[in-house]
């Protein structure tokens, strides 16, 4: 199975979609500014449809199978969300229309802000950030500005547990902070003694993922927050793992100051093959004027006769604008539909089943794999993808072999603090049968590792391509198709 590129398929003179001839009198083109040539491919509509259909078949997807990619929350994406996001009244609105003509959009965004506030316990939510990483940037910039407004210019240090996503330290340095990695203790929690030594007058804040990337709820979380606050710092919550907390705990209630949501994880908007995501940010009351612009607000209260009138609000101390316009509105619609279909009980059911599935799968898998932190997990867990008595088998081999059994591999080599990590997040939408099948495959692979390690080294065997030469890719750097001579 392989598919030619669009340039290889191209036939000189072949046409795809064409447009009507101009219906207006012609104006000469600006001679000095015209390009010489533009070598786009020449394909028929059918060529294009068949090409991309064939390409799609080379992908693994949630719709096609179990996708236990830890920290990515690959749950089922309800199909109704795709329908409603494409309603012409939404999809065909221009972002700069007069606000009187976009009250439907503004109502939806306002309501989503309110719901996210209620779900998380934060005072105000801004929907604009384009992705989780951009939400983090918002958080770090708010921390920076907050200390500046308070004329506390010494606070240059951000603490980040060593189990954190790579985006946390990258975001912090992008915001001008010095990053101090924070060790985890033997239970996988933030090490309180280490934390105490860092709590001084240079502390700007702490970025904390809870449950952390080991899938563990930090039992000391309230003490961690208290210590940071006492030292004058702010606590940022990475909402990547919010799926475990829906209707279970509101991060705002226990003192988090800022948190981003990943609508594409927790609220089931599709991952799109790597985006678009959406990363709204919630903050406490004290920080509500620092959020990016705009926030959707009620400009004129409604009454029995007429609905409220919605508009934009620019927070007084805003860190600025994160992108053009108001965020990924198409994603907001999907998240809105998802929350509306769940309600309070339904959201709690998500977290409960996500945690039930993870613990069940962990129980089954830990018989054959090393579990570095043996305590109940939340929505995901991490095992070692290696055994002391089997040299030469790595997490990568296990992941690759899983493909032959029809599964997407777990996240591997993350978190960095676990040797040969395999990070498994089943999500709530998978059935017991699927989990049993996966556990069976994991068990079979553990046996293969002992009996026939060579089999694993060369896996996978049944996929559209086999293991790829990444060194060659980086050395040769072929980053585009060969375009035929003009």
């Amino acid at each position, binding site marked *: 199975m392989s598919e030619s590129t669009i340039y290889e398929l191209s036939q000189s003179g072949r046409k795809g979609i*064409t447009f009507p001839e101009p219906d207006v009198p012609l104006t000469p083109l600006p001679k000095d500014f015209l390009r010489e040539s533009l070598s786009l491919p020449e394909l028929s509509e059918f060529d294009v*449809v068949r090409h991309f259909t064939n390409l799609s078949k080379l992908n693994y997807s949630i719709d096609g199978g179990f996708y236990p990619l830890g920290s990515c929350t690959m749950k089922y994406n309800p199909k109704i969300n795709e329908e409603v*996001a494409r309603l012409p009244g939404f999809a065909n609105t221009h972002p700069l229309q007069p606000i009187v003509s976009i009250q439907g959009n503004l109502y939806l965004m306002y309501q989503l802000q309110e719901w996210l506030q209620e779900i998380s316990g934060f005072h105000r939510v801004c929907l604009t950030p384009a992705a989780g990483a951009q939400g983090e940037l918002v958080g770090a910039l708010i921390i920076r500005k907050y200390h500046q407004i308070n004329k506390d210019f010494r606070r240059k240090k951000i603490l980040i547990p060593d189990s954190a996503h790579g985006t946390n330290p990258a975001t912090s340095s992008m915001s001008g902070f010095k990053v101090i990695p924070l060790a985890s203790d033997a239970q996988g929690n933030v090490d309180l003694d280490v934390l105490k030594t860092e709590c001084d007058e240079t502390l700007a804040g702490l970025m904390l993922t809870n449950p952390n990337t080991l899938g563990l709820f930090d039992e000391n979380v309230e003490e961690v927050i208290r210590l940071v606050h006492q030292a004058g710092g702010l606590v940022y919550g990475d909402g990547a793992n919010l799926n475990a907390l829906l209707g279970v705990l509101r991060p705002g209630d226990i003192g988090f100051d800022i948190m981003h949501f990943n609508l594409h994880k927790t609220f089931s908007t599709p991952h799109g093959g790597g985006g678009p995501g959406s990363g709204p940010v919630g903050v406490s009351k004290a920080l509500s004027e620092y959020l990016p612009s705009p926030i959707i607000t009620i400009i004129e209260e409604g009454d029995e006769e007429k609905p409220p009138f919605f508009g934009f609000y620019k927070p007084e101390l805003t860190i600025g604008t994160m992108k053009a316009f108001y965020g990924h509105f198409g994603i907001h619609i999907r998240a809105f539909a998802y929350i509306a279909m769940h309600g309070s009980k339904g959201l709690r059911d998500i977290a409960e089943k996500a945690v039930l599935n993870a613990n069940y799968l962990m129980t089954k898998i830990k018989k054959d794999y090393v579990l570095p932190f043996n305590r109940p997990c939340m929505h995901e867990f991490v095992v070692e993808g290696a055994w002391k008595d089997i040299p030469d088998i790595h997490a990568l081999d296990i992941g690759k072999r899983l493909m032959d059994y029809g599964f997407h591999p777990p996240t591997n080599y993350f978190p960095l603090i676990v040797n040969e990590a395999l990070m498994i997040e089943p999500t709530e939408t998978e059935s017991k049968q699927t989990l049993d099948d996966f556990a069976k495959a994991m068990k079979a692979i553990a046996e293969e590792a002992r009996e026939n390690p060579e089999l694993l080294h060369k896996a996978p065997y049944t996929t559209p391509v086999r293991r790829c030469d*990444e060194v060659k890719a980086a050395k040769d750097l072929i*980053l585009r198709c060969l375009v035929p001579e003009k």
Partner: protein
Amino acid sequence: MFTPHTPHEIDAMLKAIGVNSIEELFIQVPAKHRFPELNLPEPLTEMEIASDLKEISSANASTEDFISFLGAGAYNHYIPAAVDMILRRGEFYTAYTPYQPEISQGTLQAIFEFQSLMTELTGMDVSNASHYDGATAAAEASNLAYHYFRGKRKKIVVSRAVNPQYRETIRTYLQGFDDVLVIGDEETINDKIESQDLIPFIDRDTAIVLVQYPDFFGRVIDYTKLVEVAHAAGALVAFIFNPTALGLLKTPRAFDADIAVGDGQPLGIPLSFGGPYLGIFTVKDKFVRKLAGRLVGETIDHDGKRAFVLTLTAREQHIRRERSTSNICTNQGLMALAATIYLSLLGKEGFRQVANLCYQKAHYAAKKISALKGFDLAYSNTHFFHEFVVKTPQPVRQINLRLQDHWVLGGYDLSQAYPELENHMLIAVTEKLSKHDIDDFVSALEEVTGV
């Protein structure tokens, strides 16, 4: 709602785990705050939410019912049916980042083709897999330049004729670096919206100069001199381009730009009230290792067969952590796919046709509108592509409100971002508007201004 567990299965699973209830799995959560009752509406069924959202969407006026002359960063182009049909394949939209190349060749090859199309369009050497949108791509271009000079050059020179939201985004992104100065677009410099006015700002401390092409006012400006001056000072130059315009116009590379970024929304992506869109990011070869964001490269698999993989990942946050220059993690995968399908469908001929139609119709509209009493073309000596500025006899806001009664969405009110441009409307025309639509707009303008 979407959890498949039967009571029987739940019991079996709890038993296997060794707990008595699901609640027991949450004992680590502080008891005081555990299981809060959320004040949310009662859940709706699929049928109910479908109907509710239809009703909410009908509270909008959309470009479906109105003829629209709004552009200013988002453009109403025709999207061939095949684009969305392909995007709806679950194999594409329910996959994630192609970390596992063996089972992600569809996404990887599509991105590789996207990179190819973007480099062809811009004339640049390398394109990444995309950024969030045009504004963040412009901010990342500034970020790239700052790091390229290791923080030694502190000035980011940006034209006042760059989209105001893009300029705000650049400032937001760079505020973490205390010593960076974003300069060149100050409001106090009255009328400094010509590119040559940037030249005095450029010196040995300048990291990058950013211009828009066509600029925010739709003008096609010859940046040759500006680029020369910037390069003589050792600075980089970034072009913020409109992709449709490149169907006809010289590439950023032809002006010797170092970086070319833009918003790919015009390439088959719906207006969708401002997002999700597509940040295009292309550079000259020598910046390939400084580039933020994903890159797909060609290689071979174990059997020697062609394959595609994410490459140069050592630049990125998950490897470099605090030493990476950007925190970007995702790209706009599905939007990049839309642009790839769009350009493949239109191809060489169709894409040029669209660009030409935009140009022709915009020029027709400009002629007709400027012939109206009280209306004038603002920059009549400069070339434009599919957007232009007219001086209006009355405040634009007022005109636009009245135009709605004629089922017209008027152009962008420039006074919102440029106080000196009171009574100036930025009008965009695309291939979707017919001569008839344009004539209707012209008569509506005449009527609502009462001249």
